[in-house]
């Protein structure tokens, strides 16, 4: 059984008498008005019990041969005892499969983060302009940003719906900044060539 429900402000345990009340009650520790909705899962027994021993006629766990198999891994099909069965959403998996799937990160159910290539490209375009680094390395940053847009267009796989307009914006900005930088350099060279005395040449 879980320890109980906690106050969101002070993170101390709330009394069971405060559970599922229609109104706010003061937390016994920090006195903050708190309301807690508690669900039946809080009373669920955790799998701390030892797995049952296997008879000779029964199938054994893949990892613990003396324990009785109670489940099948939904991914690899191994027999699992109650200790090795890990509920992952609606699936029951073995520790090996969870580790492997988490490392591969190919399944949406096991994806816990994604790289936002569009944000990286936009940062590469905006930060140099704000820091005045653009004057020296503008073309390099623009080229990098465009490369990231091209790479990220297919590789960015967010779990939740995300518009592609940032990619389009970053591509447009990178072209504008690249062309702008070339124009700026050309202008400076032209000014130096046409008025060399003004520049001390």
């Amino acid at each position, binding site marked *: 059984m*879980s320890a109980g*429900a*906690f*106050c*969101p*402000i002070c*993170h101390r345990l*709330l009394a069971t008498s405060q*559970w*599922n009340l229609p109104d*706010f009650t003061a*937390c016994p520790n920090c006195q*903050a*008005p*708190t*309301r*807690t*909705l*508690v*669900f*039946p*899962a*809080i*009373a*669920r*027994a*955790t799998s701390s019990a030892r797995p049952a021993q296997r008879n000779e006629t029964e199938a054994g766990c893949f990892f613990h041969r003396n324990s009785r198999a109670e489940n*099948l*891994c*939904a*991914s*690899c*099909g191994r027999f699992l005892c109650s200790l090795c069965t890990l509920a992952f*959403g*609606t*699936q029951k998996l073995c520790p090996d499969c969870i580790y492997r799937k988490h490392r591969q990160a*190919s*399944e*949406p*159910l096991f*994806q*816990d*983060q*994604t*790289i*936002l290539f569009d*944000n*990286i490209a936009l*940062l590469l375009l905006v930060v140099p302009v704000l820091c005045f680094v653009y004057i020296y390395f503008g073309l390099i940053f623009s080229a990098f940003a465009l490369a990231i847009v091209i790479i990220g267009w297919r590789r960015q796989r*967010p*779990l*939740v*719906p995300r518009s592609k307009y940032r990619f389009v914006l970053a591509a447009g900005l990178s072209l504008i900044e690249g062309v702008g930088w070339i124009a700026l350099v050309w202008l400076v060279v032209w000014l130096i060539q046409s008025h060399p005395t003004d520049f001390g040449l």
Partner: protein
Amino acid sequence: MSDPAISRGRETATRPIPYKKIATTGWISRLLPGSRSEIYLGGDHLLHAKQIILFEKYRRFYFSDIEAISFSKSNRWIWLSVVWGFLLFCSLFWYLGHQTWCYIVGALFCLVFGGLLLLNLIAGRTYVVNIQTAAQIRRLRPVERENQLIKFQQTVVPIIVQAQQTQQAQQPNTNEAAV
């Protein structure tokens, strides 16, 4: 490899999970790195997506595993009102300039800070909301305004109750609820 359990696992692996956005943090959070987060409703779980500039991190809360949702009243909305109100008051000093451009700038500042104050008051009071499972306790920033919290409760609580009742019905011996 013809075991139905295995093929079922493969099916879920390739199928994309459809998510429906049910709450998000305000537009101001889009300007502050790391403060933007959203809550999505999945088939059997809630997904909390948090953007940290270059990454988006995901946390799942399965309906059958959610133990509690706790919320406490917070004074953040009062402090925000004080800040926006003070800035609105400061904006009025532009009118001491007695010049046309001062009036225009003053009006712009008044519009911005007055709008923010109004939006803050319309959004309602603030709460600190936590969701708890056996493995994690997470703060849900997208539902910390009163209106959002009410909507969130109306949407999510019946689904959680239904999911856990179904699970209890399937496992009557192992899952005796004391609540």
